[in-house]
């Protein structure tokens, strides 16, 4: 009895502490760290939520290092978007009163993480009428805006907080009354291989007998044959260029280095790999984590794709690279949301089939990649942007780099404001009118009247 009495409150306390300490310690250092997540992360960050230091750089004492972490990942895309509310616009002390209401110099003012109960579209955790804080007099300044409520500013794609490149008045005025489908509807053609061939006319394509497959354990005749037919052989990329001693891990068993494609590809495809790491498919690699796994995705994915990890080779078979396959089949091999499943029955898909069958000109078809991986031009080079996030949300970001290549601005804006239409993968007709354009037409008439009045006064 005496011994039992000795194992009292203190002993139980120590035991419980040790057990809890072991559980938390194991979870922190060896486990998935889920016990330390204060709340569900947003869809934009959930892939990297276990890499706490990606955002919480040093400690929780100061917000500045975290702000810098935001900019490290998002700064470049905000610059590209010509951010209409950058930090530098608000640091002047004359804005002190405004900042006291809404500190626009910090991303975390509007994008609080781990707070699913207050998180709205685009990871915004402010009430929808937050524009009121600084623009409460817009109704007096613009009579046309009197009847709009402050929770409707971003409705229907009228305004964005950051990216207004396709939404400002003069841009809309320039694109008034365009047809739904432009006469010269056509996308740029990626031309990396053509440019390489122009520079390297004296270098004949490698043949099977030229392959350095002897240095690659496990290389099969089939793989070598595929490679010899590929654009890699055309561009003098031999087996050992990718399977060098640092990158190559034997394929015997399942011990394949997942990073082999990233580490090898980057030496020639620097821009593609860089933008891949900036997007949702590659963001885990950018913070030093293993590649994203399909089974961890929050979007609906096909059951038989759950085992996949996302590297370059997931969409591009390095021995048989096929950009057409990568542009649709690769996407639809995993994605099974409503929009993706409806692609095959869409007008865009029909145009793509015509292009790949050779019945229509190159650049006239619309694949998944045509919209989600826009083709951007820098100098003579046409490059495929591998960061889908650049044009994903808010979807008006897609207007300029994508939609306007083929469609009128008002039609495209109306389409992107219609969620049902997007889900159907643009499979039915819509009215091509958008409220912003009615306002612009009215403004132009007012401008004309003002000009006439001034002219009359001069005369």
């Amino acid at each position, binding site marked *: 009895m005496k011994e039992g009495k000795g194992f009292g409150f203190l002993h139980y306390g120590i035991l419980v502490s040790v057990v809890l300490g072991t559980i938390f310690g194991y979870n922190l250092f060896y486990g998935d760290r889920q016990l330390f997540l204060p709340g569900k992360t947003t869809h934009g960050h959930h892939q990297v939520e276990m890499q706490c230091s990606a955002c919480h750089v040093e400690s929780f004492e100061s917000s500045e290092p975290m702000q810098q972490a935001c900019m490290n990942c998002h700064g470049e895309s905000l610059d590209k978007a*010509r951010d209409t509310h950058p930090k*530098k*616009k608000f*640091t*002047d*002390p*004359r*804005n*002190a*009163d405004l*900042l*006291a209401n809404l500190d626009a110099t910090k991303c975390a003012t509007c994008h609080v993480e781990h707070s699913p109960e207050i998180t709205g579209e685009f990871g915004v955790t402010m009430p929808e009428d937050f524009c009121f804080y*600084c623009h409460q*007099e817009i109704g007096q*300044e613009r009579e046309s805006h009197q009847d709009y409520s402050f929770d409707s500013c971003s409705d229907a794609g009228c305004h964005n907080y950051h990216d207004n*490149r396709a939404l*400002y008045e*003069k*841009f809309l005025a320039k694109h008034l009354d365009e047809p739904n489908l432009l006469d010269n509807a056509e996308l740029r053609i990626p031309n990396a291989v053509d440019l390489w061939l122009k520079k390297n006319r004296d270098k004949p394509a490698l043949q099977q007998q030229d392959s350095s497959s002897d240095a690659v354990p496990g290389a099969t005749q089939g793989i070598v044959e595929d490679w010899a037919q590929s654009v890699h052989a055309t561009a003098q990329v031999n087996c050992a260029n990718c399977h060098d001693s640092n990158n190559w891990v034997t394929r015997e068993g399942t011990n394949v280095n997942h990073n082999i494609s990233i580490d090898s590809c980057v030496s020639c495809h620097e821009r593609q790999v860089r933008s891949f790491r900036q997007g949702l498919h590659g963001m885990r690699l950018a913070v030093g984590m293993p590649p994203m796994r399909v089974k961890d995705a929050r979007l609906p994915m096909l059951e038989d794709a759950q085992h996949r990890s996302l590297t370059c080779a997931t969409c591009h078979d390095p021995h048989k690279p096929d950009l057409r396959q990568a542009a649709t089949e690769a996407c639809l091999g995993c994605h099974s949301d409503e929009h993706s499943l409806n692609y095959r029955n869409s007008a865009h898909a029909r145009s793509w089939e015509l292009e790949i069958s050779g019945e229509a000109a190159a650049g006239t078809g619309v694949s998944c990649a045509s919209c989600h991986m826009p083709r951007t031009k820098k100098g003579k080079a046409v490059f495929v942007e591998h960061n889908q996030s650049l044009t994903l949300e808010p979807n008006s970001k897609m207007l300029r780099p994508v939609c306007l290549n083929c469609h009128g601005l008002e039609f495209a804006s109306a389409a992107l404001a219609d969620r049902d239409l997007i889900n159907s993968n643009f499979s039915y007709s819509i009215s091509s009118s958008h409220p912003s354009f009615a306002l612009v037409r009215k*403004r132009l008439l*007012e*401008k004309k009247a*003002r*000009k006439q009045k*001034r002219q009359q006064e001069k005369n």
Partner: protein
Amino acid sequence: MKKLSHKLATLATFAAASIPVVQVHAEISPQRMADAIFAVIESDRAVYTKKVVNRLQNEEEVITADEHWQDEQALPLPAQMLRMGAEGVAEKDLGVTYALMSTWPINKQNEAVTEVEKKGMDFIMANPSKRFYSEETLGGQKYFTAVYQDIAVSEACVTCHNDHQDSPKDDFKLGDVMGGVVLRIKLD
């Protein structure tokens, strides 16, 4: 000769290294510093407005200046040039900031905001040849604040502001005070 010059250069280097750096303890008043900074801002802006924008847009008509200069392949407006410079200075966090404001701003966000700015705007409009100086506390920080006239130095300023749809005033003339530049220096 070459050897001699080399020796002299070496000697000069040693001499320079042996001279202690002179510590300057002279002080400059916030007002003098503000006036000097404004002189740079005003001169640069006048040069850009007259020699670049007015010349190329209004006289030679080879390129326009436009608010959306990136899309229009045009020149930034003089007001944007000043603002971009101000943002660059603010990013350096040196305790000096400046901004354009007006009683008739095209963008209403550029009206006088603080009490000192409002007083300053009233003063410089009523006294076109005098400058306004004051102190104010904003966000818990004390500042020396100066307000200077922003004058229509070229036809480009007048035409653009008179023609702009959102301009509350359409009868500006060359030499008019169109607004003010507010310049702040952080005080310890």
